């Protein structure tokens, strides 16, 4: 990549005035560095991942409204987590978390367990308990 070809596209980082360092070559093929504000193919790939998460979060929200799943699933998707990561943050075994996905089981959870989830999601236990979609 030539120094003059280092992409300066609008991106998710240019919005916060962040620029990345890239290695690129001068006219003689010798390496030097240049800052880049972003590159479109990269931004598209990232947006794809963000869209995917948004869809999963929205689907979870609907299922919470319909009473099919507990709010834990919604906040897990919102926090970009999966079962393994949530188990790491809460210290609760995965199979127990899966049980807590059921609204009936969730309704009977103690404040202590709710607080573990709330801490992992950086919200209050009240917000978690009272989430209705």
């Amino acid at each position, binding site marked *: *990549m030539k120094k003059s070809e280092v*992409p300066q596209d609008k991106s*998710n*980082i240019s*919005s*916060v005035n*962040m*620029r*990345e*360092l*890239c*290695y*690129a*070559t001068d006219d003689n*093929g*010798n*390496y030097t*560095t240049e*800052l*880049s504000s972003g*590159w*479109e*193919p*990269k931004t*598209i*790939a*990232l*947006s*794809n*991942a*963000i869209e*995917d998460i948004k869809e999963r979060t929205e689907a979870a929200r609907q299922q919470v409204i319909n009473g099919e799943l507990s709010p834990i699933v919604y906040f897990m998707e919102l*926090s*970009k*987590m*999966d079962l*393994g*990561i949530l188990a*790491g*943050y809460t210290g609760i075994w995965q199979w127990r978390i899966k049980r807590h996905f059921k609204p009936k089981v969730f309704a009977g959870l103690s404040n202590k367990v709710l607080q573990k989830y709330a801490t992992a999601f950086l919200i209050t236990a009240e917000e978690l308990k009272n989430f209705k979609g």
Partner: protein
Amino acid sequence: MTTDFTHHQAAHCENGVASNLLKHNGLNISEPMVFGIGSGLFFVYLPFIKVNHAPAFSYRPMPGAIFSRLAKRLGLKIKRQKFSGSQAAQKALDDNLKNNIPSGLQVGVYNLTYFPDDYRFHFNAHNLVVYGKTGNDYLISDPVMETTTTLTTEELDRVRFAKGAFAPKGQMYYPIDIPKDIDFKKAINKAIKATCRDMLAPVPIVGVWGIKYVAKQIRKWPVKLGVRKANHYLAQIVRMQEEIGTGGGGFRFIYGAFLQEASVILDNPQLKELSFEMTAIGDLWRDFAVEAARVYKKRSSKPDVYNMLADMLTDIANREEQFFKQLRKAV
């Protein structure tokens, strides 16, 4: 308290932290040199591990490997500590700062508040340097940022004890011994040989073979998984290839820069020639990313796009195979 640490921006976090910490300790070593001697160039495809609901691809070795190999090859001593609790982790860091030792930390990206929201995923192999503390704020030199920044004590604790794959467990590291006479020639030779061995390894998911294997899989994806999932997987390839600062097979460009520096140190003009080929291969990776982006953005009007992408990738793999075979002979 603060240490007299100088922040230099880098393309990749691990190289950057290593280079910045060593510069602080009097060893002037560039980012490409760290990357090259640490054998940072790699490829592995892990279809059985899912990241963000798509298979894992990695263009770099395990987190921490670059700095460890660099230290081994240059004879540096690096102290690494992991912690079971926040208090011990914070105390060890504070003690280091009191003793004027800027310290490298492995952290999770998700709670790095100075990152743009869209970049905050549960990715735990990021690296930064803490070089001071004022009140409740730690002074942070994150090598992918243009300038230094800060994190509160609570924020730093959260990123040091991020959970999930590669959980950092508060990991802290810093050089404790740097020998006076370092044999760069020997280290570079060894490192180049190791990179060639890795990239040409006769393992189906590693190096050049791994790239060819992924190309084969791409041909099957649209039929086997449906277009939606196939596109999601493609996006994953590009995202892993385009981690912050590595835009467009950017590791190839860093490696090219390393070969140019190495060619001067070893007085070997052939390495310079090879660096031009590496640049050309890096550009092919860029072209691949552009075409792949068109596909998952559904902008591609070309017929049979998946086979076309697979052909591009196979072509890259063949060029790299030739490249590493020549490089192996050149040192």
